[in-house]
């Protein structure tokens, strides 16, 4: 039985009209349906923020945890049940600010997860403070003289760490984004899709128009081989007059999960505890 977009349901959201999150949700559902993943087969893990509300707005298993902590919770869930398709949906503040250490560790660890970072370059839910990806010079009430910290570049960091699948998408290109998410879901290791997401309420600098004028799709007259790490590194730093979207880098480094033979036997919850073995364990202390 094919999975249909309708299976994911309709929900009333708490997002502002015109927010980029709507298109990301749409692209995600399209990618899930096209990947033939039914709601009960997937687990969406999120932190706290506007983006992190996404799991409440489609039918799925959901673990909506703490601000900044989606990656460790997702890691634990995937390592408990390798059959779950685990996806994180959180904002730039959640992933790169509060959860920055987890982001770096997740890149190194390479658990089979898909990480969707709704990158609006601002803290939306707390009403418009700078985020780690905010551009220098952006003014907010918390940064009245402008942002002075150099913006974090998650794509460049992920490529430099040889993450197996690194892509950048744009909420204004739904079909293209759905394609990226679909490829990310198929990748058997950590996959990062950093998604440029206009925030109509608080980010008056990086508007829909601002992104629209700059993004260009890789592969459409702009050939790029994602296996070419040097080229990927160069591309990952292109974020100014022109911003590439598409798959930036891929490799086939084995996933962290593959090192636990016990996970080949399916979910841990279905595996019996062997008291015969336990007796031997106790015996080893005699």
């Amino acid at each position: 039985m094919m999975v249909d977009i309708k299976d994911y349901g309709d929900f009333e959201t708490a997002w502002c009209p015109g927010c980029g999150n709507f298109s990301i949700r749409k692209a995600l559902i399209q990618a899930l349906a096209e990947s033939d993943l039914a709601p009960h087969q997937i687990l969406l893990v999120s932190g706290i923020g506007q983006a992190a509300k996404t799991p409440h707005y489609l039918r799925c298993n959901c673990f909506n945890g703490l601000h900044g902590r989606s990656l460790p919770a997702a890691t634990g869930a995937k390592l408990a049940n390798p059959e779950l398709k685990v996806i994180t949906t959180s904002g730039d503040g959640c992933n790169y600010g509060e959860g920055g250490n987890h982001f770096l560790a997740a890149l190194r660890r390479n658990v089979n997860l898909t990480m969707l970072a709704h990158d609006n370059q601002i803290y939306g839910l707390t009403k418009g403070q700078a985020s780690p990806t905010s551009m220098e010079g952006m003014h907010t009430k918390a940064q009245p003289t402008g942002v002075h910290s150099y913006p974090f570049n998650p794509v460049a960091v992920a490529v430099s760490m040889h993450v197996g699948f690194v892509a950048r998408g744009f909420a204004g290109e739904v079909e293209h984004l759905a394609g990226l998410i679909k490829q990310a879901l198929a990748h058997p290791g950590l996959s990062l899709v950093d998604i440029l997401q206009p925030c109509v309420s608080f980010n008056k600098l990086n508007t829909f128009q601002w992104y629209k004028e700059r993004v260009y799709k890789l592969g459409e007259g702009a050939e790029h081989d994602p296996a070419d790490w040097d080229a990927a590194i160069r591309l990952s730093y292109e974020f100014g007059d022109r911003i590439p979207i598409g798959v930036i880098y891929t490799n086939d480094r084995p996933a962290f999960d593959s090192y636990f033979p016990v996970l080949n036997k399916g979910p841990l919850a279905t595996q019996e505890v062997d008291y015969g073995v336990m007796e031997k364990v106790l015996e080893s202390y005699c």
Partner: protein
Amino acid sequence: MSQGSMNLMIGGEAGQGLVTIGQVLAKALVKSGYHILVTQDYMSRVRGGHNTFTIRFSPQDLDSPCEGLDLLVALNQETLARHAKELNAGAVVLADTGLSCGQTPCLNVPYEDLADKRYLNTVALGVAASLLKLDLELVAQTLETAIGKKKGDKVVEENRQALEKASQWAAGQEHGLKPPAPEKEPDKRMMLGGNQAIALGALAGGLKFVAFYPMTPSTAIALTVIAHAEQMGVVYEQAEDEIAAVNMALGASYAGAPALVCTSGGGYALMTEGVSLAGMTETPLVIALAMRPGPATGLPTRTEQGDLLFALHGGHGEFPRAILTPGSVKQCFAAGYRALHLAEKYQTPVFILTDQFLADSLRALTPFDLSGLTPVRPGGGGASGGDYRRYAITGDGISPRRLPGMGPELVIADSDEHDQEGHITEDLELRVRMNDKRLAKQKGLRAEVEPPVFVGPEAADTLLVSWGSSQGPVAEAARRLGEEGQSVATCHFSQVWPLVPDQFAERFKKAGQVVVIEGNATGQFAGLLRKEAGIQAQRFIGRYDGLNLTPEYILRQLAS
């Protein structure tokens, strides 16, 4: 001699191999038919400093470590300087010929004549074993198992030679040390510390996932699980920090793997938001918290019972929890097992609160009986079907728990206040109902509280109250007072939360005076008794110098 037992200490610098020979000696004593009780006192460094490994042994079961030494193995001058004053009458001191013993009568061991410098600790082991009349072959085999090498290996042969030379030398010495005779036909016994016992208990309870960030004195809990992980089908990860560890454990538990984190005070401080998340999402979680003296980094390798109230109150908001406080290594196993079951049943955080003293204290135990035990089965309860609601409001507050991906039902867990399905809500009337539902689980938790154990006369003149690792020292102090004809009883709490006054308040009232004894400066448990049971102890005896309570310490305080 100390109460039919013998107390020996090995002292030296970190890096001199004293823990290795201490463990081998302890194990050889166990195999020879003795009960043991090991206390380890070490500094937070890898080389140098001053460390001790103390073994009290006896043909009978032991409750507590004690003060006063019958045999002191001094691997350096500092050991002599610090511990000579602790020697009992007739005690023997083993010291290198190069060390100056001053007034202390020493047996000067010519270490360098007996073996190569590298085997100094083996020579010490050989001499000590010989003085204790242990079988040399048994000691040699125990040492080989400890270093993980087989007979025929060069290191093994050199160790054997060192042992033999040492025991030959010892045989020719006058010393007068008279170890108690061992048990005639001892049962097969394990040698285990508190940390290991917690790990084994948790494994028997069905543990499938452990995440941790290394922190003394808790790390050995995770390391023990990891040592058996492949055999027992457990997944583990050393997380990037304690925040990650607790959130990984919650993710794993949500997805059906019974999960544990282990840490000490500072790491627990970082975990507290996650503990609160466990309370809100109703996700089973076991936190093994091994205390050390604070505040902040405090004394990283020493002991204290200073985080009782922190364990009780860590995590914002109001939600149910249980705190188990095992008093012995055997109780650590039971607590590990029980914590997993309580966490799963009540879908809430459960603590196993120990300290460095108990965590590192080795004892001899008959292998745990697994008959009658069953591992946790995550998930279950309520009817399945299309209208599954993760947080359905029930009489006892326990909602049916399903596992994501294991059936058609969608499992929605949320750290925001949520409706019965699990979705975010700001309906304030519903908020009250959901909060009540979570707290309703306290009723069941209270009904399952392990009652405190009383020993001694019903209406004693003095009731000595302890929790956690203080049990043994208090028990022995009470026994000694009883032998002197005093009317003394003890009460030990192996679970301090929830506190159920009906289980103990009456008997407390019958006592002439109530004395609460705990390893902290402010009397945290004494305060809890006052708040929860209206019991005002007449006296509080605390210890917070980083060392464990001893019967002698307690008796001195009582007398003062």
